[in-house]
Each structure stands twice: as C-alpha cells, then as structure tokens.
C-alpha cells in the first residue's frame, strides 16, 4: 500500500514538473503589460495574437515586450496590434528558417535580423555554419547589429560564418561585435572595423580543416 502511494506521489510530481513550465509560459503573456493597453478592443486583439503565437510555439516574452514597448511609447492601439502581429510573423519565419528546433533566443534573434533587412536565406547559412544543436543566437545578434550599422549584409555574413566555421565561440563573435562598436565610436567605418577585428580573431583560431576536425559531432549539452 505504502509502495503504491509512493509510486502515485512520484508520478504526480513528475507530471506536475513537466506541466509547470508550460503553465508558466502560458501565464507569461496574461500579465499586466498587455493589460496596460488602454483600448479594450486592442487589448483583446493583442492578447488573442499572443495566445495564437503561444499555441504555435513562438516565444511569447518577445511579443509581450513588444506590446509593452508600444504602451511605453504611447503608440496607438492599432499600431501596437500591428507591431505584435508583424513580430509574430517574423518569429514564425525565423523558426522555419532555423529549423529543425530553434530555441526561443534563436527565434528572437532571427526575427530581429529579418527586421533590419537581413535576407531570409542568410539565416539558413548562419544555421548551417554551426553544428546542429549549437545556438546561433549570438552570431545572429552580431549580424543584426552590424547590418544595422550599415555593413552590407553579405560582408557581415561572410565574416561571421568564416569565424563560425573556424570554431569561433559565440563569445568570440560577440567580442568582434563589441570591438567593431568601439572602433566605430573612434571613427572607423563599420565595414573596415569588422574586417580588421574579424581578421584579428581569425588569426587566433585553428585552420578550417583543424576546426572541422575539432567541431563537435552532435548536439551540445
């Protein structure tokens, strides 16, 4: 009897542990930020949009943040709804481009890259430059920042994918982005700064062949 009770309790614990994150995720978009939209119709429309996105497995926090940004910036209700819908569309597109199983961070990074004008196929190229399972969120973020600074997307992609193929870690790539930022502040053009910084990091990395041999074969823990 005791043994059975213990088994039932254990099963209940396991089930609740697996259900809890889903419940928390579902709650995340029903909080105050969306309710802060003054117009009831818009509020309902935005909530519906976020619910729809959640049911499709899209990262809800990005949509909630977008709605809150609109509220803070005192945007019209219709504009907030349009911004949330547009972001949901970009997130969905990023999810497909970064298939098979992008994380929330990767989907958000991909959606932001699309928003600054990075062509969709480039997301696939970034994905394929790292082994499956290794997050491409940071390379995408750096690509987004460089393109927003005015570096042609093809140049930025080439430098970043080269770094990725030679085994540069996301931290290396983020470091390149930060260095480009300080170079730009010092007066260099973003394009020139990227080339200089990427070369600097590349000189510390193994050759492409060695990098391929060293690359992990499967998903990282």
């Amino acid at each position: 009897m005791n043994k059975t009770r213990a088994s039932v309790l254990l099963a209940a614990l396991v089930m609740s542990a697996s259900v809890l994150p889903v419940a928390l995720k579902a709650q995340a978009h029903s909080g105050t930020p969306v309710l802060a939209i003054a117009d009831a119709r818009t509020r309902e429309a935005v909530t519906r949009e976020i619910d729809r996105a959640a049911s499709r497995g899209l990262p809800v926090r990005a949509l909630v943040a977008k709605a809150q940004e609109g509220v803070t910036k005192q945007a019209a209700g219709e504009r907030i709804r349009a911004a949330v819908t547009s972001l949901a569309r970009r997130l969905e597109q990023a999810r497909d481009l970064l298939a098979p199983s992008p994380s929330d961070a990767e989907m958000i990074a991909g959606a932001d890259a699309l928003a600054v004008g990075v062509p969709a196929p480039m997301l696939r190229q970034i994905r394929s430059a790292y082994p499956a399972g290794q997050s491409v969120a940071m390379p995408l973020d750096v690509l987004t920042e460089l393109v927003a600074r005015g570096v042609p997307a093809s140049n930025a992609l080439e430098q970043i994918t080269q770094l990725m193929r030679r085994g540069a870690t996301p931290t290396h790539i983020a470091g390149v982005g930060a260095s480009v930022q300080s170079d730009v502040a010092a007066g260099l053009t973003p394009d020139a700064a990227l080339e200089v910084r990427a070369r600097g990091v590349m000189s510390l990395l193994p050759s492409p062949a060695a990098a391929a041999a060293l690359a992990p074969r499967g998903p990282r823990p």
Partner: protein
Amino acid sequence: MNRRRIAAFGFALGAALAFVADVARAQRQPELRIEGGFAYITQRGFSSEDAALLAILWRPTSEKLGFVTSANLTYAQDSLAAAQGVAAVDVPWKWNSHLRTEAGVAGASFALRREGRGGNGNTFVRQHVVAANYGAWFGATAGATNRDGVFARSYAADIGLWQRWGPLYLSGVATRLQSADWPLLLASGVSRNPDDLVFDLYDAQLTAQLRYGPHDIAVTYTARAGTAETDASFAALTWTGTLQIADRVALVGSAGRQLADPLRGLPQAEVVTASVRVSLGPKPLPVLERSLIARASLELQPLGGAVLEVRVLASEALEIVIAGDFSEWRPIRMERVDGVWVARVRLTTGKYRVAVQVNGGEWRAPRNLARVRDDFGGEAGLVVIP
C-alpha cells in the same frame, strides 16, 4: 538649357522638401513664447521716450535640427519704430556630438527720429564646440543697412568661451567689427575722422548669469575700443533678469546701455525694459541646451556582461527617461550626476534595444549604438553584450 534649369530646380525643390519633411517629422511640440511689455529709451541728444514692445519666438524642439524664429516690434510714438525678424538653424554634427553649426538671417525695418528711416539685413554663421560644462565658438556676421538712402556694410568676427559651474554661467567673447555706417556712429556721439572710410571696433564682452530653477539674473559688461574717436562712453553694463511667477508666465526685465550695433543697425541708447513672457507648448529648453544628444558607452566586465552607461548633456529642468529590453520597456528616470544626466545599467550577455526620451518627446537611440526601427515609427539603439 531651360530643361536643365527646370530639372535642377525640381531636384533642388525635391531635396529641400524632403529635408523639411524629415525635419518636421523629427520635431514635436514647438516652443512658443509671446512677450509684451514696456521700454524706456534714452538716446543721446534726445529726450527720453516710452515704447511698447512685442516679441514672438517660435522654436521647435528637435535633436536633429534646432530652428529658431522670432519677431520683435518696438514702437515709440513719433520717434522710434522697429520691426525685426530672425530665423536661425542649429545643426548638431552627425559624426561628432560635440560640434554644432549655427547659422541664421535677420532683417529689420526701422524709423529713427523720423530722419533715420531704413532697413537692415544681416546673416551669421557660428561653429560651436560643446562639452558638458564648457564650450567655445567662433563665427562671422555680415550686415547691411540702408538709412535715408545711404547704404553701409558691416562685418564682424567673434570668438567666445563659456563655462558653467552649477548655477553659475560665465562667458567671454571678443569681437572685431568693421563698418562704414557712419550715420549710426554719428548718431551715437562718435566724431568722425574724415580720412577714414570705415571704422574698426574691438569689443570685449563678459557675461555672468546666475540661475535658480527657472529664475535667472545676468550682468553683461562690454568694453569697446576702436579707430573712431568718440566722446561717448565705450563701456556698457547691462542687467537682465527673469522671474518665473507661474508655470508658463515669467516677468522679464533689463536695464543698461546698449552700444551702437552697426551689424543690426541699432543706435547706442540707455534702455530699461519690463515685460511679461507667456510660454506655450512644452517646457522651454534653455538656449545652450538645444542640442540634446544621448551618448552610450560600454564597460565590459571581466566575468562577462557589461555596464551600459548612457549620458545626456541637458538642463536639469528637463525630464529624461531611459527604457529598453532590460527594463521590459518600463521607463526609468535618469540621474543627475555632475551636471549630466546619467543611467548605468548592468547587462548580461545578449542583445538589447535601448531608447531615451527627453521631456515626453520622441524616443531616440543613444549615439554610438546601431539604430533600428522600433515598429512604432521611431527608433531604438541596439547593443550586443559579449
């Protein structure tokens, strides 16, 4: 030929319209001031007179481009009437937030003592270097005056410095002026050397201003030397003050000597004024702080993450907030540190969007950060933390 001209004209018109539209988009809630009052004017050799004053100033608030236009009307029955208009732009440099270029034109129509009817036009350009609490400028002004059919040109070059210590503002300016406007100098008590076609004047001017909240008092001392001999005083002291009596209403007064100004066609006179200023629109921005630019810098931390520091050089009378992904887009009021608005935000690895808002205006990306559209018709700064 005609086609080319039409094409060039069309192109210029299109570019101008695009520029104006862009500027108009960047501008919100223009500052509008209306000032009306009374003046007591004493000119050398004439009895003192009362005059009525009316001034209107319109200044759209914009980070992109400062634009000021004002109109002044002075009227004293049977002796002095003047109408002045000024339009000036103040352009912050895109590549260096410490630099601003200011340029403008002014025009006036006046009648002085019945005989001195005429008009004046002048234009100026000035280059400013601005830091948090000090700055410098140099500039040039050219003016032309037609008085009773006699045309005279005047030129001036000036260089100045300013420094602010808390509520105290000090400035000094040196001006070299050359003019052929003898009628103005003669009316001001200067005796002419017949051999001189033009006269040279050297002015040194010091201003001290004390601010207390919206109130201020300033004193300006000007010493003048020149090639022209004169029995009029070559020194002038002027007091001005503003007393804010309500949110949008201030009493403005001044008293002192106004030296002859050939660039603007103004005669030397002792002037006392008192007027009421009504400010419409948002909180007025102090003149020195029109160019509000947020700058961002990153301090990378040895164990990962970074501290993002955003600084805005602006008056303490303003309200400046920062928001971003780090605050879930909830506005955080920036702090006043050593005369500068500062926000320091500790960020972990990742990508963040950041924007700054001044006095309820547009949300803008701090300089040094990549700029991205925000889906709401505005922009945000983008930063990636390693």
